[in-house]
């Protein structure tokens, strides 16, 4: 990247910090509630920037060995399941669906109870 510091994560963290420390206590309850949502959204973006590639690649590697094409996609897998062109009882398929779900929630909401339970 050709850009100077602060990088995108630094900038998002600065916004999050500002909202949390300077704004949240100054606004009525229903807006403070919205600020919490905004903070959550900023944190999703930060995690996606930081970990998104690695988490996606892990799924794609598993997917490649499962469906044996050069350029596997999530859409292609969805279609194979839909058309039942893949054995729904296949353990590798189930394993892949678990990895896919885990890696998505790892960005969207790593505090989610089921995710925390599964990584313990």
């Amino acid at each position: 990247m050709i850009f100077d510091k602060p990088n995108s994560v630094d900038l998002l963290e600065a916004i999050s910090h500002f909202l949390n420390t300077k704004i949240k206590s100054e606004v009525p309850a229903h807006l403070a509630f919205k600020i919490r949502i905004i903070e959550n959204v900023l944190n999703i973006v930060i995690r996606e920037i930081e970990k998104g590639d690695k988490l996606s690649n892990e799924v794609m590697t598993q997917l490649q060995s499962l469906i044996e094409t050069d350029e596997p996609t999530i859409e292609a897998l969805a279609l194979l399941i839909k058309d039942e062109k893949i054995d729904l009882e296949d353990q590798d398929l189930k394993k892949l669906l678990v990895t896919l779900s885990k890696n998505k929630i790892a960005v969207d909401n790593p505090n989610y109870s089921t995710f925390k339970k599964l990584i313990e």
Partner: protein
Amino acid sequence: MTEELSIALQNKLLEANIEGKILNLVPLTGGASKEIWKFEVQDTDEIKQYILRKGSGIEGPLAIKTSDEALLQQEVKKINAPVPEIVAVSSLDEELGDSYIMKFVEGESIPRKVLRDNEYKDALPLLAFQCGESIAKIHEVEVNNLHYLQEKTPMDQLNELYSTYESFNQPSPMFEYTYLWLKDQDFGDIKASLVHGDFRLGNIIVSNSGLESIIDWELAHIGNPLQDLGWICGNSWRFGQNEKVVGGFGDLEDLLKGYNSISKFKVNENLVRTWQVFGTFRWGVICLIQAAAHLNGSVNSIEKAAIGRRVSETEIDIADLLFLGGK
């Protein structure tokens, strides 16, 4: 804006012979789809508290009109199920829009407060049984009076959810798998009844003695009643209390004891489990619907945008239920 709303409220209340000054009109943090306002009316010597529930006039594909919610609540009140008393109903073409005014019920609806605050500590162990009883009561409402509700079989609903998911063009391997799995299940051969459709913490008011009132009827329909039991067991509504299967506060055994104490159809745990997967899939599709309203430009809403990233919560929950022995 608040002043205009105040005037509209005052006019509407006059129709119900409630006269007085509107005080302390404040928005409450409610669901993502409806406005909720709390206010007081000062009579000569008394102050009474009310709630306004107001829709935008544009319902999501699964929701009913706000004014129909009011009619439904009045119907449910007749069989002594706990619901707030409606004082006035307004249709979309009136000054107040698609909305209704009900009496304020003392208690708490915010899930995390109910689960954490000391005040509700003694209520929580009673709540699963009470919810079971109330859900069974809802299912005894005479459905012939509810002409504004659609009747949907489990397969109708499943296909409706699936085609809604498909219409958003965001293929999910987990949802495809779930749909095929659900199509194969036994949903229980039981007479169609009124289904609340969203019975869980957040949509019930809890006091220190337990369940006080059932609110938020926008997802009501006529269908297989077991849906309400599976729904409240979904992990989406446990608010972090994963080990408490019923709503984050109770055990399935107690919910079913309460339900079976009133219902003629006795329910076992396996049926609830199927409906739990169904409910989790349904919540996933509702998240997609909410996010789509933001994505297609019909509303610009941070809540609706954010909810699109909660679809993955339902996927991990279903993966846990189907593949990893989750409860």
